[in-house]
């Protein structure tokens, strides 16, 4: 697969500086695959896709540095060719999803509770700031505690803190063996089992429940995977299931009601939710199709120590769960430090930020 490389950082910097001079907001976009998520941001389009290509990749260092506009599929193909992967399994949600969008959206796939999230794999970044400077934070090394960790802060910030132009990510070898299974047990029992297995060295790397059955993926060396497969039982499952789950293409997602994501503590029991649910992340992430209002859904999540995000554009005016007063104040102060004129995706996450 040929990888197109082009350094367009000078143009991106120009566009930011023009926006600063004219004091007009920018709407940062990769492919726009996640534009349904979050609030609508107004502003002049800043398209990152001309700035693309892998800057450096040495598999034995377990680090790849890539420009923000690179299609995620290109990055994944390059890693795959070296027997490596992005362990956090970021969803694409569309053909052209970019690396910058993946970091800025901060969404992780089914392996997340075991491998870590997108931010956990961020080692360094280059960012165009609201001062119109193109700066470098972190680096290409596994450990680096010099200065504040602005690179990991960029993950999940939805472009509200600056334009990400380049990112260095930790990557890992693909597991030697991977097998998936389906076990027909109810949700209560599945959650109990998952809590039990979670305390043992069982090589689980994905666990979901659709109301009828538990779906499990096992990854690791031959010995551990085969032993666990034997012990747990169940029937074989087509591993394509995990892709369908990650990309939200399972039948569950076709339901026309708004989609909500509940992020909950480990070991939260089965919850009676107002709608249909699909459990992922061994119970720590639950998808809900529901017409219930935001307050009701969030009330349930907060009650058990979690939070809820709406994944359907227009279903609520606050797709992200509102912040406590002190947290909101520090969000605003931080935004003002990195983007004093407020030109980057204003209001994309919260109307006040």
């Amino acid at each position, binding site marked *: 697969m040929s990888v197109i490389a082009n350094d367009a950082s000078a143009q991106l910097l120009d566009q930011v500086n023009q926006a600063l001079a004219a004091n007009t907001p920018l709407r940062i976009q990769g492919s726009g695959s996640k534009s349904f998520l979050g609030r609508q941001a107004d502003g002049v389009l800043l398209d990152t896709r001309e700035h693309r290509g892998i800057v450096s990749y040495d598999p034995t260092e377990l680090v790849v540095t890539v420009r923000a506009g690179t299609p995620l599929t290109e990055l994944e193909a390059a890693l795959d060719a070296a027997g490596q992967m992005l362990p956090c399994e970021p969803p694409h949600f569309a053909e052209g999803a970019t690396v910058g969008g993946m970091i800025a959206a901060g969404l992780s796939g089914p392996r997340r509770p075991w491998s870590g999230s997108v931010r956990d794999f961020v080692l360094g970044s280059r960012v165009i700031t609201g*001062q119109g400077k193109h700066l*470098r934070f972190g680096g290409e*090394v596994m450990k680096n505690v010099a*200065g*504040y960790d602005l690179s990991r802060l960029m993950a999940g910030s939805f472009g509200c803190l600056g334009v990400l132009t380049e990112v260095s990510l930790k990557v890992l070898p693909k597991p030697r063996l991977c097998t998936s299974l389906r076990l027909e047990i109810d949700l209560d029992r599945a959650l109990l089992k998952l809590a039990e297995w979670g305390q043992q*060295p069982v*090589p689980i790397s994905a666990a979901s429940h659709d109301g009828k059955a538990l779906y499990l993926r096992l990854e690791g060396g031959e010995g551990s995977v085969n*032993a666990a497969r034997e012990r747990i039982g169940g029937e074989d499952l087509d591993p394509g299931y995990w892709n369908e789950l990650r990309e939200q293409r399972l039948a569950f997602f076709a339901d026309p009601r708004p989609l909500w994501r509940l992020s909950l503590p480990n*070991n939260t029991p089965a919850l009676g939710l107002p709608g249909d649910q699909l459990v992922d992340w061994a119970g720590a992430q639950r998808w809900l199709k529901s017409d219930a209002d935001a307050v009701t859904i969030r009330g349930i999540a907060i009650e058990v120590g979690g939070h809820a995000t709406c994944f359907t554009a227009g279903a609520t005016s606050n797709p992200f769960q509102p*912040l406590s007063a002190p947290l909101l104040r520090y969000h605003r102060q931080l935004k003002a430090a990195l983007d004093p004129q407020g030109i980057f995706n204003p209001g994309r996450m919260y109307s006040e930020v």
Partner: protein
Amino acid sequence: MNILYDERVDGALPKVDKAALLAELQAQLPDLDILHRSEDLKPYECDGLSAYRTTPLLVVLPERIEQVETLLKLCHQRGVPVVARGAGTGLSGGALPLEQGILLVMARFNKILEVDPAGRFARVQPGVRNLAISQAAAPYELYYAPDPSSQIACSIGGNVAENAGGVHCLKYGLTVHNLLKVDILTVEGERMTLGSDALDSPGFDLLALFTGSEGMLGIVTEVTVKLLPKPQVAKVLLAAFDSVEKAGRAVGDIIAAGIIPGGLEMMDNLSIRAAEDFIHAGYPVDAEAILLCELDGVEADVHDDCARVSEVLKLAGATEVRLARDEAERVRFWAGRKNAFPAVGRISPDYYCMDGTIPRRELPGVLKGISDLSEQFGLRVANVFHAGDGNMHPLILFDANQPGELERAEDLGGKILELCVKVGGSITGEHGVGREKINQMCSQFNADELTLFHAVKAAFDPSGLLNPGKNIPTLHRCAEFGRMHIHNGQLPFPELERF
């Protein structure tokens, strides 16, 4: 250039009336333990970087979070600087006090509040020792993964503030990867929760930003950490090499084979000999370098991986590959590595521990550079290395009683860190900047980057009262440092006025 706080380049500090402050603290917080006599303050003059000492204005030892809250409010009102301290094991002077500031010791907050085996988390107070968490989780066959060599002493609050690592962090991550939630008090004494009991939380990832912020953005009052199931088995291979280059290449070969060891450490000949004399670990003392490779997990996988790694090591030119025969030998192999610092301490009156990181492929060149510098400065350097993640700990041997040797050791250390930056690495992998590496920050970051760091600091602490002078140098300091320290004939910060 001296690293002690220098108001001329580091900024003016508020003048505090000690007697008035003491009286007010005693009035408002009658049950707070306050130290104010010079003989009581003495033990708190330094952290693990003991070459630098400053007597704090006052030391406070709170036992309830409400006391910390009141103290911070009072200090905020009166404009009194506050330096947090955990166990004081930091190696970069992060908890180095200020003459005009209060040292806030969090060590008495030593209670484990909750261990939840099914939820796989532990909720603890900030003064709890790192190892105590794993000990509390042990009955459930769980543990807390980050294991700094100082784990019997260092506090989890200090670990959060430094984003501490350990010998197992290539596979299991740093502190930042193993936290769920941190409760803090802001400089204004306001309570705030970063992260949550769930795997993520709404808004910006302030937990990631806060981790490693060296007590500059807030005071940690409670920490919820993730617990992991203990690996079923752990086995250690020891491989000897007749050159450090070969050992360095072997590390890349192991990873290229698709194996991520639980721990992967390297020691050079000087460290091997020092450790062997001290611990009798059974190391081959004539090897130029050894690698310790720990493989952990489920028995069958570990067995397979040991065979694979042995093969890789032999192909890479190891003169000897030994599998620890039993748990006792495995513990001995590690004891040698974990005691490398004190072992080196036995062969030299003083040593100075560096903490640079490099891309692993640069190892041979950097080791060569270090040995050239060592010769040039006339000081021996022993190398221990978290080889898996490129974190080097060169130990510079010197004698502080010989006039000028400490300064020479520091200059040599500074050169080593600049070498790390030059090859694309960092001046600190896990020990933090503190005051120790404040000058080298000027080599790693440019003026715009440093300015942004100061803006982030101001977003949390506009009056700059939390741990002033640590972590991020002022541009004045960098200008001064640059004037004294010209790289390749090029002045850093040429745009700045020289002082």
